């Protein structure tokens, strides 16, 4: 069984390489014909407005939404998190999203590129050491519903890059890694580092029954 990586725009290659290094077979997904036979799906980082438009024009949006509602396990990072959230703030009015995890997410909520940063994130369920996390014009989780399991929050420690005074939002305790049922989302980019634990967690999710 194969894991699909949405391959319309964004850092598709990084996700595919991480999954391949974990021994998984990956398939780039560009049209509805690419969907059958998947046991998991990755929505990569990219521009969520562009991705939303290309999902629509490729005819992929509705069949993919159906597959996800039917229990296809999914990992969304950054733009992928926006596409999976139930409520998106500061998006385009015509921007479509799947609405599968009960989060309110503000696009670019941490600020522009000058506010992008890197810091270690403690994830209790993944153990020590903390997961290195890269945030790039990241979406900010403003609210997580009661059914959402918050796996990690922003720590108070030091951050590399992204001067704190330029940050528009995102204080200690902001959720950055969340799960609800078969949906796993990260505001950061685990695919840009060599730590594979977030992807490993997702691969485990794809192996359990829906």
């Amino acid at each position, binding site marked *: 069984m194969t894991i699909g990586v949405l391959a319309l*725009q964004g850092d598709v290659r990084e996700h595919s390489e991480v999954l391949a290094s974990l021994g998984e077979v990956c398939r780039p997904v560009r049209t509805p014909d690419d969907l059958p036979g998947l046991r998991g799906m990755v929505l990569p980082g990219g*521009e969520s407005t562009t991705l939303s438009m290309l999902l629509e024009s490729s005819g992929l949006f509705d069949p993919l939404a159906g597959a996800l509602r039917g229990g296809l396990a999914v990992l969304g990072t950054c733009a992928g998190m926006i596409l999976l959230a139930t409520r998106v703030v500061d998006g385009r009015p015509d921007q479509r999203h799947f609405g599968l995890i009960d989060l309110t997410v503000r696009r670019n909520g941490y600020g522009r590129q000058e506010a992008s940063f890197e810091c270690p994130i403690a994830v209790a369920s993944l153990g020590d050491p903390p997961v290195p996390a*890269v945030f790039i014009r990241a979406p900010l989780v403003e609210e997580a519903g009661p059914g959402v399991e918050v796996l990690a929050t922003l720590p108070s420690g030091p951050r590399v890059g992204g001067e704190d005074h330029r940050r528009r939002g995102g204080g200690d305790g902001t959720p950055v890694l969340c799960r609800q049922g078969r949906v796993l989302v990260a505001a950061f980019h685990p695919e840009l580092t060599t730590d594979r634990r977030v992807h490993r967690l997702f691969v485990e999710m794809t192996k359990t029954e829906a």
Partner: protein
Amino acid sequence: MTVKRGLADMLRGGVIMDVVDAEQAKVAEDAGAVAVMALERVPSDIRRDGGVARMSDPAMIQGIQAAVTVPVMAKARIGHFAEAQVLAALGVDYIDESEVLTPADEAHHIDKWAFDIPFVCGATSLGEALRRISEGAALIRSKGEAGTGNVVEAVRHLRSILGDVRRITQADSAELYAWAKELAAPIDLVRQIAATGRLPVPLFCAGGIATPADASLVMQLGAEAVFVGSGIFKSADPVRRASAIVEATAHYADADLVAKVSAGLGEAMPGEEIGSLEVHLADRGW
């Protein structure tokens, strides 16, 4: 550096469009641009008007930042680190140290390590690309010949850069020193190419892209995203052409789709023969 180059990774597979005002920026975003490049005159107008081309008016850049939610890039002159400082103060998401503007320094490019904001630089060859990366560029684009609507120079640059990358992967460890010498580039970066088979940062295409098929061509040659300058807003129907180029870039290997989006787009921007040009912008920078 992961934070700096990461933004370029997120732009891959997308189209970055030159825009001169908030209205064009909205058109670009509506069409699915992954980012916009804010500048006062597109390259074909700079070419026509002549004179010294400088960084754009900060008020104009701020107007565009307010109009769109996608990343906003802006251009500084080669070597003009004070213009780059101004652009960083404005909070632009990317700075293009660009040969389209008149160079401010004939020997030195900007020390890009001194900035938190990532830089993109143009290159015509692998040596030039590696020198820019050694100065801190987080993204390389082909120079092409901006403002001509003629893709031939961009193709030359992509083939030169990627052809040398492929040759380096075949070299033995002793030959890598000769490559570093020939390219006038740091040995560490040459070794990195030998080990990974890739440029150390993403490679995008710029210069002369005017049609969806142009975008498909350069993506198939190995570019990871495209910049379109004059090609959209100097064409007969910018709205349709912009979205057609976005589709053709995302689905570059699907000729049926490129054919479909190319149909009935109206006139492309007027093109120019490279031999007839008075100024070769790609010769700027070293």
